[in-house]
C-alpha cells in the first residue's frame, strides 16, 4: 500500500488568517487521523475522522474526508504562533492498528 501524502511541504500564513492542509491516500481506509508535531515533541492527535463521516470539528480545527476522491483536508482558522508545527495525516492502511503517516506539511503562522 502507498502512504498517505500531504500535498505541500510548507505553508506560510499570516497570524489570524486561515490555512488548509490537504492530504491524499491510495487505499481504502476505516479512519483518517490528523496529527500535529511541534519542534522537539512527538506527534499529538488533533482529529480522527471515520470513513463514514464527511466533516469533523475540534475548536478552530475542521477536518473533511472525501472517500470518493480519497482525500482529506485540515483547516485551521484564526491561526496563532503556537500553531507552528508539522501537520500529518495518518491512515490505518498499514499493519493492523499501526499508522501510516504522510510526509507532513509545515505550517508557519509567524515567520521569525
Amino acid at each position, binding site marked *: 500500500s502507498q502512504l498517505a501524502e500531504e500535498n505541500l511541504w510548507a505553508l506560510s500564513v499570516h497570524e489570524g488568517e486561515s490555512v488548509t492542509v490537504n492530504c491524499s491516500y491510495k487505499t481504502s481506509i476505516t479512519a483518517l487521523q490528523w496529527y500535529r508535531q511541534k519542534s*522537539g*515533541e*512527538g506527534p499529538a492527535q488533533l482529529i480522527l475522522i471515520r470513513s463514514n463521516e464527511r466533516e469533523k470539528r475540534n475548536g478552530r480545527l475542521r477536518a473533511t474526508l472525501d472517500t470518493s476522491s480519497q482525500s482529506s483536508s485540515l483547516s485551521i482558522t484564526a491561526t496563532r504562533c503556537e500553531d507552528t508545527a508539522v501537520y500529518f495525516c495518518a491512515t490505518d492502511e498499514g499493519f*493492523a*492498528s499501526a*499508522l501510516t*503517516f504522510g510526509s507532513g506539511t509545515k505550517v508557519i503562522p509567524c515567520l521569525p
Partner: protein
Amino acid sequence: NSKVIQTPRYLVKGQGQKAKMRCIPEKGHPVVFWYQQNKNNEFKFLINFQNQEVLQQIDMTEKRFSAECPSNSPCSLEIQSSEAGDSALYLCASSPLWGNYAEQFFGPGTRLTVL
C-alpha cells in the same frame, strides 16, 4: 504535555555499537508502538505490543532490533549493531485500545545519531 516518557532524549553511538532506548507508556495503556522518523519526516512502523506480547513487526526489526515490554518495567527497543542509516528519531506511542479508531499518544522520542 506528553505522558509517555522516553529516555534518553539523545543517543550517540558509533557504527556497530548497541543502542538501547526506553519507553514508559501512559498508565493503563496496554498497546505500545515503536516508529522510526527520519530527517525527511518519513515514519516507519517498527513493532507493536499488546501487554507483553509482540503483535506485529517489520522484517528489519525482526533481524536487527530487539524489543520488549515486560510487565512493571519500561518497554525497550535495542539496535544490536547500529548503522549510519539508523540515525533517526525513535518514537514510542501507547494506546488504551487495540483497533483502527484508537488514538495513539506519542512520547517526545529518542534522537539517535550513529557516527
